[in-house]
C-alpha cells in the first residue's frame, strides 16, 4: 500500500487537514488498474483517415475485457452482444420490451464528431463497446496488454506520484503481515485506511480518520518530509517496508 499523507496542519478545525493525515492510500490492485487504463486509453490510439478509431488489438482487447457489451451496426439496427455470455439481442428505433431504443445513424454520427470516440470499423460494420462489466478479470486485461505491447504488469506496482506531491506531502508505503509472512495489502483494506472520520449519523467530525505519525517512524526522514522545496519519497522495498499497523493509526479528535 502506497500512502500520501499531510506534513502540515491547516488549522485547529478538525474538518481541515492536520499534520500526518492520510490523504490517499493506493493498493497494488488500484495501481495496476490505473496503469492498465492509462496504457489502453483510447485517446492514445489514432483516428484513421476514415474517421474511425484504429482497431488496435491492444485497445479492442481491453474494451472487450472491461465492457459488458459489444455493439455492431447492421443497417438501422444494432446487434448487442453480452460479451461474458455471448447472448445477443437486437436494438432499433422502436422501443423493445425494456423501453430501449436507438437511432443508430444519429448515435454514430454524434460519436464520430468527437475526438474521444471509440467507434471502430469491423468487417465493414461500425462497432463499439459499452455497459458496465462487473467483476473485471484484471489478469486477463494484463494478459492482453502483455501480449500486444511491451508493458509488463510487474513494472506497475508503485503509484506514480507527481513532483509536486513529493514536495508537498509525505510518501511512504507499507506491507501486510499475516501468519508470520509479509503480504500485499488488499484494496479493501487500503480503502478502509483513508477517508474521513464520521459519527453515527454519518456527519464528518474529522477530515481524516487515519494518520501517519511519521515523525516517529525511523524509515521516514522528518526534515526531508516537511521540506516543501524538496522532493522526497520514503517508500521502501520488500520487507524494508513498515508494517501497516506500525505505520498507520487512527486519529484522535
Amino acid at each position, binding site marked *: 500500500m502506497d500512502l*500520501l499523507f*499531510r506534513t502540515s496542519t*491547516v*488549522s485547529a*478545525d478538525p*474538518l*481541515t*487537514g492536520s499534520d500526518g493525515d492520510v*490523504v*490517499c*492510500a493506493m493498493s497494488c490492485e*488500484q495501481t495496476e488498474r*490505473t496503469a492498465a*487504463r*492509462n496504457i489502453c*486509453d483510447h*485517446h492514445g490510439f489514432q483516428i484513421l483517415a476514415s474517421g474511425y478509431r484504429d482497431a488496435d488489438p491492444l485497445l479492442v482487447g481491453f474494451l472487450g475485457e472491461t*465492457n*459488458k*457489451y459489444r*455493439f455492431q451496426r447492421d443497417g438501422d439496427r*444494432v446487434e*448487442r452482444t453480452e460479451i461474458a455470455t455471448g447472448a445477443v439481442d437486437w*436494438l432499433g428505433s422502436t*422501443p423493445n420490451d425494456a*423501453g*430501449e*431504443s*436507438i*437511432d443508430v*445513424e*444519429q*448515435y454514430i454520427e*454524434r*460519436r464520430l464528431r*468527437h475526438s*474521444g470516440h*471509440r467507434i471502430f470499423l469491423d468487417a465493414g460494420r461500425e462497432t463499439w463497446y*459499452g*455497459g*458496465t462489466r*462487473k467483476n473485471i478479470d484484471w489478469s486477463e486485461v494484463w494478459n492482453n496488454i502483455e501480449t500486444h505491447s511491451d508493458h509488463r504488469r510487474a513494472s506497475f506496482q508503485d503509484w*506514480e506520484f*507527481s*513532483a*509536486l*506531491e513529493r514536495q*508537498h*506531502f509525505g510518501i511512504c508505503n507499507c506491507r501486510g503481515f499475516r501468519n508470520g509472512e509479509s503480504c500485499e495489502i488488499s*484494496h479493501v483494506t*487500503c*480503502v478502509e485506511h*483513508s*477517508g*474521513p472520520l*464520521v459519527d453515527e449519523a*454519518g456527519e*464528518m467530525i474529522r*477530515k481524516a480518520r487515519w494518520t501517519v505519525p511519521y515523525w516517529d517512524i525511523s524509515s521516514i526522514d522528518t526534515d526531508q518530509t516537511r521540506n*516543501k522545496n524538496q522532493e522526497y519519497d520514503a517508500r521502501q522495498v520488500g520487507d524494508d517496508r513498515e508494517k501497516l499497523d506500525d505505520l498507520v493509526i487512527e486519529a484522535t479528535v
Partner: protein
Amino acid sequence: MATVEKTIKTGGDYSTIAAWEEDLDESSIYSSGDTAVGLVSGDHEIGTKITFNSGGTVGLVITRLSVPEADRHDGTAGSGVTLTISTSSNYCFEATNPSGEDVRRVVEWLEWDYEDTDHGGDEWISVGSGGGSTIDRAPVFSHNLVHDVDCGSNIGRIVQVGGWWSATHNNILYTVRSTSSAYCHGLQCNERISAVANNTVYDVATTGSGANARGLKINSELGYLRCFNNISVGTAGTSAADWDGTWTGSTIGANNLSSDSTAPGGDEVHGEAAADLFVSTSGGSEDLHLKGCAAAVGAGADLGTSVTVYGNAIASSTTGTAVNFDIDNRDRVAEWDTWDIGADQRVSPIVTKTIKSGGDYTSPSAWAADLDDSSIYGCGDTAVGECSGEHELTTELILNGGGTVGLVQTRITAPTADRHDGTAGSGTRWTSSSTGTKIFRMSHSVASVQRTCEWIEFDFEDTVRSGDEWIYITQGLAEGTGRLCNFSHNLLHDMDAGSSPCRLVWAETYCNALHNNIVYNVTSTSTNFVYGINHYFYNSLSSNNTVYNVSGPDANGIYYYSRFSSGAYDNNDAYNNISVGTSGTGSADFGGYAANRSSNNLSSDSSAPGSDAVTGESAADLFVSTSAGSEDLHLKSGAAAIGAGVDLGTSYTVDVHGGITVGMSRFGTALNFDIDNYDREDADDWDIGADQRVAAAASALPVAMNTYQQMMRGR
C-alpha cells in the same frame, strides 16, 4: 488575485483529486483571493469519500474541479474523464465549507460512473452541504454525467445540491436503482434561492415497497428557486413521479418536461416518452442527446448567460462554465439558438445537395420537390441546395417543402466559388420562361420551416411575359422564428412587366429579412403598382439593399406597407438602403408608410425615410456603371453612401412581438457581409447599399475567376 491551475493526472501536478484538494491551503501555491482550478484528465477511482472543503484558511474565493476542454466528455459514458465510484460511505463526494469559511465550490465536466454496483452506502454526490446564506459560498454542479447507480437497499439522493445561490445546470443523470422502502431521488435541490436549469434526468427507479422514486426533487417551499428547462422522464417504482416539489409564489419555474404530468411551472411539456426524446436509451449505449423533432427542441426558455436569483447572477462564467453552454459546450447565446429543454442543445444536421448538370439534382425544382423525402432528410435537418450554373425556370418554383419530414430550414444558395460578384453573368444565374404571376415563392402555410434564398442572379432578360413574375416571399399569417424568411445577396434585374403590376420582390410575411440585394431595371406601365422591393408586413428588416431604375406610374424603388393603416404596427425596419433613379409620373424612390424604425437610407429624391437620410444623390455619382448591359452598382470613389450607414452588427432584433432576431449566420450569409461577401465588421464605418466599398480593391490585381465566370467569359 490569481487563477492557479493544476493538473490532476498520472504525470501531472497531482496524481489524485484528493491530493490536489488537500493542497488547497498551501500558501506556497495560493494566496488570499485566488481561484484554484484543478484540471482532471484520465480516469480515476474514487474508493473513499472525497471531502472538497479546503482553501478557506489560505483565503481562496473559488475552488473549481474541472476538466481541460480537450478531455471533456461528449455527454456519453467513456468519452472523457471518468471517476469510477466504489465508495461504501454515504457520500462519495462532498463539497462543503467548514464553519466560518466562504469558498465557492465548482464541480464540472466529470463523468461519475457507479458501475451499476451496490457498494453499501447511499453514494451521494453532495455539493454545498452545510447550507450557507452568502453568495461567497455558492456552489456549482454543472456539465457532469452521472450514471449506473445501484443504491441497493439504501436511500439515494444521487446528486444533492444545497446552499443558497447554488447552481445545478446542464448535467445528465441516468439509471439509478434502489430497493429502499423510503425513497430514491435522482437530482435533489434542497435549498431556497437557487437555480436548477437544463438538466436531463432519466430512469430513476425503486422497487422497494412504498418507496417513492423521483427523477427531480425540488424542496422549493423555502422559496426563490429558479427551475427552468429541465427534463425528468422514465421514473419508475411503486410511487414514482418524474418531478416532485412544492412551488411557492416566489419560486419560478417554466419550460420543464416530464413523461408523466408532473413537470411544473408554465410552458411545461408533459407525456413525452424517453424513446421519443433521446438518441439512445439502450443499456450500455445511452445517449441522452435530443433526437430530431423531440418535443424538447426549441421548447426551452432563453436564460442568457446567467440566472439571476434574489439579486445575484449565478450559473455564470464567473465561477465556471456558464449556463448558456450545453453538454457539448455549445454556446446557445453565441449561436443564436432557440433554447431546448435539457442538457443538450440540438444542432440541426445540414444535408447539402448540389444543383447543376451532373449534380445531385439538375434543377432547383427537382431539389425543391424532394424536400420531404425521408430517405434523404430526417426530422430536424437543414436542407441546403447549392446551385451552380444557369437554370431556366419554366414554371413557378415553389420552395415550400420540408414541413412533412420536419425540416427546420431550407436554404438555396450558390457555393462560394460560383457566387456572383454583384454584376450580371458572374455567378449562378436563373432565367425565367414562366408565364405565371410568380417565378419563385418561398412559403409554407402550415408547418414552421425557415426559408433562405441567397446568392442567386435572377435575370428577367428584359422580356415581357404574360405574368408579373414576382419573387414572392410568404410564410402565411403566423409569427415566430420558425417561419422566418431570409432573402439576401441576390441580384435581380431587367424586369419588363409590360402592362402588369409588378413588385419584383414582395415580402408578404412577418419575420423576414431582406438584405444586401441589388435590384435594377424594373419597368411596367401598370397604374396599379410598380415596386422594386415591397415590404408588406411587420416584424421585418430591410437593410443594405440597392435599388436602381424602377420606372412606371407611381413607381417606388422600395415600398413599405403596413396592414394596419393606423401605423401601430408598421415596424418594417429599414436601414442603409439605396433607392435611386425611380421614374414615372408620381413616382418616388421610397414610398408607402414610413418604416417604424429607420435611418441612413439614401434616395435621389427627398423620400429616403428615417433619420440620417441622404437625399438628392444621383446614380451617376454613386455607382461604378449605370451603362445598360454593363451595370455595376458597386460604389464608386467619393460616393455619398460611403461611410454614411449605421453599423447593424451581425444580427438585428425586431423588437416588437417577441423580439425576433433576424439576419444572422444561422440562416445563411449574415447581414454584415456585403454583396462581395466582405465582412463590414472589418471596416471602420458601414456604407449605405449592398456594396461596402473597399478602397484597396481599386488597385488590386485581378482575382482568379470562379468557374462560372470562366464559362461566361467564353461566350
